[in-house]
């Protein structure tokens, strides 16, 4: 059974600081997604990582994937208040994991709060 673990689960940051959220998963996979969820809202797609060594950046967020280490990171640079939200990683085992695509397994989520 695929297990996806995020850490930290809670992150309180000051504006302007940098930090990294980690996503570890237990089974071979070849694609990983990062989502953002604001309170009471649905999930917004941030990044799709499809291969080992993939790195994607959008604004102050950068995501990377290391399939050999079964690890993805979401790095936040110079945090601003607008980044306050819950961030989820989700792993799709796909054919690499011996199943079909589409069955996402989500981590517990990281609640990020950015303070002035």
């Amino acid at each position: 059974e695929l297990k996806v673990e995020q850490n930290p689960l809670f992150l309180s940051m000051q504006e302007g600081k940098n930090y990294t959220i980690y996503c570890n998963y237990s089974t071979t996979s070849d694609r990983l997604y990062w989502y953002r969820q604001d309170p009471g809202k649905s999930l917004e797609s941030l990044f799709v990582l499809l291969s080992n060594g993939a790195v994607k950046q959008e604004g102050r967020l950068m995501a990377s994937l290391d399939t050999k280490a079964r690890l993805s990171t979401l790095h936040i640079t110079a945090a601003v208040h607008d980044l306050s939200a819950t961030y989820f990683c989700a792993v799709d085992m796909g054919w690499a994991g011996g199943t079909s695509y589409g069955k996402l397994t989500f981590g517990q989520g990281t609640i990020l709060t950015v303070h002035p």
Partner: protein
Amino acid sequence: EAGVAQSPRYKIIEKRQSVAFWCNPISGHATLYWYQQILGQGPKLLIQFQNNGVVDDSQLPKDRFSAERLKGVDSTLKIQPAKLEDSAVYLCASSRGAESEQFFGPGTRLTVL
């Protein structure tokens, strides 16, 4: 392009009652998903459709939950009878195909009293 539509947005029922949720995916998206998100947790996949066929329903509690996508477009998810532990947000998502990025709807927040 219009996003994934869901209704109702909120529903409050008593335990042992029945409830149904509706989802209209993004036009042209062949794959549709229903997720359950309990407060404080990540979404859990309940069922995945490819057109009008079920691809995966291994995590659907089939004794009380059912879902259909008869014409390969809209979908309904039903709970009958509801239990207290079914209180959650039910999210519908769609994608062009199973290998494509999933887009989520606004969700239906269910409270079972």
